[in-house]
Each structure stands twice: as C-alpha cells, then as structure tokens.
C-alpha cells in the first residue's frame, strides 16, 4: 500500500487530538487536584457504554453524547466522596484505591453488558476532502471537539473566577483555605469535572473503536504518558504531550506492526518521562 503523506499526517493528527481529548480530563484530576486516578480509563468506558445503552434504547447517539458527561461526572463525584477524599493524605493508597475502583467499574460493566465487544455507528456518515485526501467526517468532528475542549479549559483556568480559585488552591492549598476558599468543594468539583471530561471523551470516541470492558487500560496508559511527559502544566502542556505520544504512535505504526509501534512509543515515553521526572524532582529540591 503506497503511503499518502497527507493521509499519514492526518491520521497522526487525529490520533494525537483524540488522545488530547482523553488526556484532558486526566490533566484536570492530576494537574489540578493532584490525584492519580487509575480509574480514569474506566470512567471513559462508562461514557462509551452510556452512549451504547441509550443508542440501543432507541434514543440515538446524541442523547447519549449529551448524557454521558453528566452521568460520568456524577460517578466521579461519588468516587471523590467515597474514596479519593478519604485518602488525601495517603497518595500511594489513592493509586491503589482508584485501581480497585477501576476493577469494580469494569466488572460491573461485564455484569451488566457482558464481556463481548460492541460497535455503534458514527452519527455522521461520509467523508470530507482534506487537502485532496478523503477523510471520515466524524473523525474530523472529534478532532474539532478536542481543540474546542482544550481552548475551553484554557479559558476556564486563565480567565474565570473559578479558574483563579482553582489555580490558587493548586499553588498553595493551605493559604487558599486560610483565605476562605472552600478547597474541599473546589477539589471535588474539579475531580467531578475531570470525570465528566472522561465521559465526554468516551462518548465521542465510542463510534471510532470497539466498546468492550477492557478498553479502559488501552486509553489510560497513553493518556497518562501524555500527561506525564507534558513539558508544562495546563492544557497547552497536555497538548504537547498528546502530540508526542499519540502522533508518535500513529506515525511509527504506519511503518511497523502495531505491537512494535506501541513498544516504541512506550519505550520513548519512558525515556522522556525520565527526563521530565528528573527535571521536576530537581526543581523541587
């Protein structure tokens, strides 16, 4: 198969932007609340299954798309209240508990929907010519959504009062609390918002991939790598990380088998992560 450079680049961009959409929720919970949420992939899966359930009930794709962020946001709020908040002082236990929560969500989905994989039709059929190459319209829509979410997040953080309060909490939690900010409520809201973004990402990507109970981990690790290798905090840093991880994997997989591509990206990310982590550790000292 001859490789069309335009198509190659489009695929890489699509993968990077899809990853950005997936990682943006993670960037909120990790970057702002400081919680490594290993159940993020499963929250995303819950979003995809919400779309699937409503699609099957005959309500169509867009009903599920609208409801998924709400439902998963509530799920996130519950997770924060029952689990994450109680372990605020024990970060390693937060990892463990969210990993357990991931297992619980995954197995609940298996119990409700069975272990098999499902597919749903994209709501937009057909393709659009981009630089002379035909590209599926729905993929372009998801890419646009990723850009929109990133811009919205940037605006929320940098230009609104809530964003200022959250940035204050991130910078100095004690001082923020002493200044009269309800840090618990802010953190719960941010966590739920991150979960809602996971639900949105799950709903948006549901027609692109097969929906199955194991899909969460496939999203979680690249998204985490993207957030961790991000050279800076905030939505812009996440975008760079997603471009490196998602774009890299897409480009390598055009020339090698998918397994090799995944391995190459994982290896590359570990090397990058060493540098970023080393630099962060150096800055703390």
């Amino acid at each position, binding site marked *: 198969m001859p490789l069309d450079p335009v198509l190659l680049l489009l695929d890489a961009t699509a993968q990077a932007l899809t990853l950005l959409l997936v990682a943006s929720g993670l960037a909120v919970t990790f970057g702002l609340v400081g919680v490594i949420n290993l159940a993020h992939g499963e929250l995303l899966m819950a979003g995809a299954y919400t779309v699937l359930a409503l699609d099957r009930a005959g309500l169509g794709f867009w009903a599920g798309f609208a409801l998924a962020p709400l439902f998963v946001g509530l799920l996130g709020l519950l997770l924060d209240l029952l689990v994450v908040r109680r372990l605020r002082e024990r970060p390693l236990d937060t990892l463990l*508990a969210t990993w357990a929560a991931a297992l619980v969500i995954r197995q609940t989905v298996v119990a409700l929907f069975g272990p098999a994989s499902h597919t749903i039709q994209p709501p937009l059929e057909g393709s659009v010519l981009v630089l002379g190459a035909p590209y599926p319209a729905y993929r372009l829509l998801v890419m646009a959504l990723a850009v929109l979410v990133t811009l919205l997040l940037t605006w929320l953080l940098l230009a609104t009062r809530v964003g200022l309060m959250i940035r204050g909490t991130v910078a100095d939690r004690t001082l923020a609390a002493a200044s009269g900010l309800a840090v618990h409520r802010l953190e719960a809201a941010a966590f739920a918002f991150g979960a809602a973004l996971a639900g949105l990402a799950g709903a948006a990507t549901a027609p692109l991939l097969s929906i199955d109970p194991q899909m969460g981990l496939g999203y979680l690790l690249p998204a985490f790598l993207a957030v961790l290798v991000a050279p800076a905090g905030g939505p812009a840093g996440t975008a760079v990380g997603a471009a490196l991880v998602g774009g890299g994997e897409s480009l390598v997989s055009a020339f090698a088998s998918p397994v090799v591509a995944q391995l190459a990206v994982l290896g590359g990310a570990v090397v990058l992560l060493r540098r970023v*982590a*080393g630099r962060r550790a150096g800055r703390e000292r």
Partner: protein
Amino acid sequence: MSREPLLPALLFWLGLALLPLWAPGWLLGQLAQHLGYGLLAMSLAYLWGQGGLLSFCQALFFGAGAYAYALAGLGRLPLLPDSPALGLLLAVAVPTALAALAGLLLVTARVPTGPAWAVLTLVLGVIGERLAVASPFLGGSNGLAGLPPLALPLPGGPLELVDPLPSFLALLLVAAAVQLALARKIAAPSGSLLRAVREDPLRAAHLGIDPVAVRLRAFMLAAAVAGLGGGLFAAQFGFVAPPLLGLGLSTEVLVWVAVGGRGSPLAALVGALLVKTAEGLLGEWLGAGWPLALGLLLLLVVLLFPRGVFGGLLARLARPARR
C-alpha cells in the same frame, strides 16, 4: 513495622508443616501452588511495605521466572542443556537481571516514587505482557506446555516433585526459608537503610546513604524472590502462559498484600493463601462476580485497614518484643 516477630512465624510454619497429617492430597497440591504465589506476595510486601515502592508489575518478575524455568526445562535455550535444576537457577537470575535493567531505567533516573513511578511500573507490565504474547520463542498467547518437574537428587534415586505431598513440603521449606531470611534482612542494618530512604530520600542522602543503590538493591531482591516463586510455580503447574506475568496477576498480588499487610512479608503470604483459598471456595459459586468481589475487597481494605488485616495484628505482637 521494623521487626518481624519470630514466634508467630515459627508457629505458623510449624502448623503448616503438620497439615499433611490430616489434609487431603488435592488440598496440599493446591496449597503448594499457593505457596508459590505466596513468594510473589512476600516480594511485593518487601518492596512496597519496606521500600515504599508500590509496583503494579510485580507479576512480571514472577512470570519471567516461570518462563525462564520453562525455557531451560524444555531445552529451548541455545548452548544450555535442558535441565530443570538449571531452570530454577535461571528463574532467579533472569528476573534479577531484568530488574537491574528496569531499575536502571526507573530508579537511577530518580523518578519520584509517587505517581510517575507507579505509572512506569504499569507501562513495564504492559510491555512485558505484549512481548510475551507477540514472541513465538515464548509460545505466544498459547504459552509453553509440558514442562518437566523438578527432581531432588536423593540417595535412593531422584525424587520428582510431582505428587502433592513432596511438592507441598518442598514449597513449604523454600517459602519458610525465604520468609525467615526476609525477616532477618528487614531487621538488619540494611533494612533500616531501606526504610530511611523510604521515609526521606533527601535526608538519607545527606546522611551518606545512596538512595539509588538502596532502592535498586531492594528492587532486584524483590524480583529474585518473585522469580523463585514463578519458577517453582511453573515446575508444579507444568505450563506457562502470558497471564502469569500480566497486569491481572499483578493486581491480584496487590490485593493479597493489601489484605494481608504490606509491612510484613509473613502477613502478605498469609493474605495470599487466604485470598487464593477463598477464590477456590467462592470462585465457582460467584463465577464472573469474583473479580468484582476482589475489587471491592481491595477498596475496603485500603479504606478501612491500611496496614492489612494481619499486618496490624503482627505489629501488635511485635511491639512488646521491641522493648
């Protein structure tokens, strides 16, 4: 907990050694396999409880040990004879070498031991599982079957560890030896160094301790113990496949160790035995609900018993001894 109380450990091993007097053969065979898992649990308890290094890929080293045993036992390694005894040696050596490699990546980069470390171990686990599935040399997703059992060179001719009773006794001896050795290690000055690095690496460094070397040694020791468990498990099971090194088993170990108690290898081993036995009893009845129960169990233990069910008990026993 800094010291493992000796008396409960000795009583536990004595009680276990008396089990063959009344327990049926199938139970002994099952317990022998669970003791292999118990070695894995002890390795994670040492790394996580003592070293503060929470690993989401500890099964990788267990599986590497199992595969090393399988490859040597089947004579698939070039230049090496097919020998189960050599396989057991490699089951310790290969995971230790792997841990040295992975450790160079993780530990020497001074990756903070929090989130980044945990995600890196997850990534390592995924890399290992995918490599095993994709590699024809390792049998792909089918794994390798027909492994020869271990044989003890006895005066009256070699005794193959096939029957439940000799397997159980052999595993019991190895597990007890490893547990007592780990307890000694924890109580020794090097154990204090590891805890010092866990509590405050920067302060430890200022006191002249090299945190990188201390963590790397702990990582390699844990891998060696896990690999030994994997090799012995493979020798009894006669079959290795990618799930032995996958994230599923790595998660299961976390449950055993969290339930038993991360601070003490003995508590972790008891956790492994109990959870695996419960799985044998309830697994069939609960069916697909078992992983769900496992997840809920982990969640509850982390929230309510952060030291584990037996860890707290053992710590209480250890306190008067320290005075």
